């Protein structure tokens, strides 16, 4: 699987789920890609680097989401 293909899979799957949730665990993403976590990480890192995904952190747990989605995005968009 190349990067573009992986990205398409992730974006599509996350968009479909947007109605119910906007933040996803790393394991959700590796399951979408159907890869072992270590392998999936390379693709996901690149997606974050390219701005396709963004991190969200509670401090103890990290999650991933599409930029600009979710309740907090508006409140945090302060440039």
């Amino acid at each position, binding site marked *: 699987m190349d990067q573009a293909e992986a990205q398409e899979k992730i974006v599509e799957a996350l968009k479909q789920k947007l109605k119910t949730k906007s933040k996803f*665990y*790393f*394991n959700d993403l590796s399951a979408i890609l159907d890869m*072992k*976590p*270590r392998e*999936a*990480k390379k693709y*996901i*890192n690149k997606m*974050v*680097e390219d701005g396709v995904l*963004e*991190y*969200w*952190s*509670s*401090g*103890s*747990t*990290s999650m991933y*989401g599409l930029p600009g989605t979710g309740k*907090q*995005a508006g*409140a*945090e968009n*302060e*440039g």
Partner: protein
Amino acid sequence: MAKHKTPLLDQLESGPWPSFVSDLKQEAEKRAKNKKGLELQIPVDVVEDLLGVLELSYKHGRTHWKHGGIVGVFGYGGGVIGRYNDQPTMFPGVAHFHTVRVAQPGGKFYSTEYLRQLCNLWDFRGSGITNMHGSTGDIILIGTTTPQLEEIFFEMSHNMNQDLGGSGSNLRTPADCIGQARCEFACYDTQALCYDLTMEYQDELHRPAFPYKFKFKFDGCPNCCVASIARADMSFIGTWKDDIRIDAEAVKAYVGGEIKPNGGAHAGRDWGKFDIQKEVIGLCPTGCMKYENNKLTINNRECTRCMHCINAMPRALRIGKETGLSIFVGAKAPILDGAQMGSLLVPFVEVNADDDYRAIKDVVEAVWDWWMEDGKNRERLGELIKRQGFQKLLEATGIKPVPQHVKEPRSNPYIFWKEEEVEGGWERDIDAFRKDHMR
């Protein structure tokens, strides 16, 4: 005159102990005066508003902080924790009040120049409030706004040779004891190993992909000064294979009162004459020591490296020469199932910098592969070990079971052999069996 009235917080200052409320008030005053004439980059009354919102939380009995956020520095998924206030109109100074975690130096060896640089930066671009150190061991800078984050990171990484620490589902900032730099008990160079693993696992530290947090801690000896056995998902504790070295003359000197026990640590009051029988031999947890005819002997095979005798008589007893470390896994603070101490996974491994600590890294990576794949979201390694069993961990790491892995004789009869573990499998020649065993 304080910006907000804080009668409930004021009460905290009345106790016998130093109060963080007094510290905060002092910092608020310092910012208001701004003697250095700094061009403060976040609101001058940030600390006043922090006191105000805390007072309100005490009054309401609930928090006014929102949970988490998307803020961070570019490319990093950890090191910055977004904090927002749900009363931004009342307390605009803390509307955005993010936390920055900064990797502490190995063994917490600071220079005053470094500390001054760090504090100056934080006075200028943050609230000035620090937590030295968080329970993970890192430097915690409390309270700044989003636009300051990249500026702080740039200054740290370009001018202070300093990186951010870990937060979130990451490898957290590894922490170590002062080790061989100052301590004769250290069985390996904790700072060298801590630094090496920190550099090796930069991706794990900064880009979260674990099910939850993961902590490394390095203790040079079983005294465990950084309490790795209680706090780290993977703790590296120095130990030795051979015998405790005994200096018989020094033992006599302790018994004779010429050398103070425990390095003179209990000199504050008169505890009476040192009694080797009561204070050392009698306290040995395995009873492996004897003091007879003015001679100390140790049955080293029974020694559990509790360190008590070495701590009591450091000039007479020294760690062995064949040193290395033990790896413990699964310690954590309570959330599920209560607090857990680490379980021994590798009884002894040499600490070999020449081969890039390969033996240690092999264990680390095998454990991560298992946990990343089988761990549930927000499940610590210790919880996965409990859920799937220690045996599963041994299979995942390819480590053969040894007596040191066994806490007690089994009490559960429902443990079964697997066919591949039994010579010849389940098939057998019944005629051959009947030769020795009649029906």
